[in-house]
């Protein structure tokens, strides 16, 4: 298994971990953290793909990661503002659950 394949698998593992946590937990903070972990997985994947040829690094992917990091910051800020609003309205930090939730 080459370096690139190994890190690509790790990055997709991070992404899937974040996706699973995003779907299955009703707590808002966990969802925000899960989104950040998904973002980190995608960044790791981009950087791995940039270093597929170690002699000629692909700097366009590096710039995409930089822009992605700034976007993750703004996403987290807006999500946290919405979480505070949810807490102010409902008094809880969980999303309202239906009768049959996916994972308890």
């Amino acid at each position, binding site marked *: 298994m080459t370096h690139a*394949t190994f890190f*690509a*698998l790790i*990055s*997709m593992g991070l*992404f*899937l971990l974040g*996706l*699973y946590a995003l*779907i*299955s937990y009703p707590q808002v903070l966990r969802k925000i953290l899960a989104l950040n972990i998904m973002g980190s997985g995608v960044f790791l*994947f981009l950087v791995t*793909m940039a270093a*597929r*040829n170690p002699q*000629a*690094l*692909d*700097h*366009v992917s*590096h*710039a*995409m990661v*930089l*822009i992605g990091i*700034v*976007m993750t*910051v*703004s*996403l987290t*800020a*807006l999500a*946290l*503002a*919405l979480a*505070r*609003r949810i807490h*102010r309205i409902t008094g809880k930090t969980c999303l309202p659950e239906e009768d*049959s939730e*996916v*994972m308890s």
Partner: protein
Amino acid sequence: MLTLSFKQTLFILLFSIYGLALIIAVVTLPEPVINLPRLVDSQLATSGVNHPVTAVLFNYRGYDTLLETAILLLTLLSVWAVHYTATALPKNRFAAEFLSVARPIRALLPVILLTAGYLLWIGNTAPGGAFQAGAVLSWIGIGLRLTDNLQPSAHATVGLRVLLGAGLTLFIGVALSNSLLEYPPHSASLWIFIIESGLTLSFSLTLVMLFVAAPGMTLTKSL
């Protein structure tokens, strides 16, 4: 042995199928058709900066940075919209333990300014540039916030709004006056530096405003 409901089994099944498809797609990724590193390096001399990542960010993919700045402003407006419907301002008083940590930040203010200026200038030849410098510069605002020197207020002053939008306005102005971000090679580094300076200022202010998360902010005690 735990029993799963129908919804839970469906979720696990679909998730596993999706995960497997993703892993297969990633492992069997084909080689790129266009040799991007060669393209980036061949035009680096005329791009106005000496570092390939900065050249990609502000010259080759300048549009992405422009739209990213617009998204940052949009996020700030969305946070304002969420909090404008609130009935009262958040009465945040940070714990006293923060004061012992945050007072050294005020003492480090000149160092923060110097580091931000250095990062902005060195973006030409080494990893750095507007976003890194803006993030370091925002530490000033966050340190002031943690010592309760910066308080949320119900209304943003005109000066604050002008400074928040200055980065994007400058960027759009440079883009329009250069026939949509095609810099002439002899003045490319000047235009890029103008863009980066404006971006540093408004990016740091945007980050502090996102941290304060109120419609406006005011300095209360003197430094």
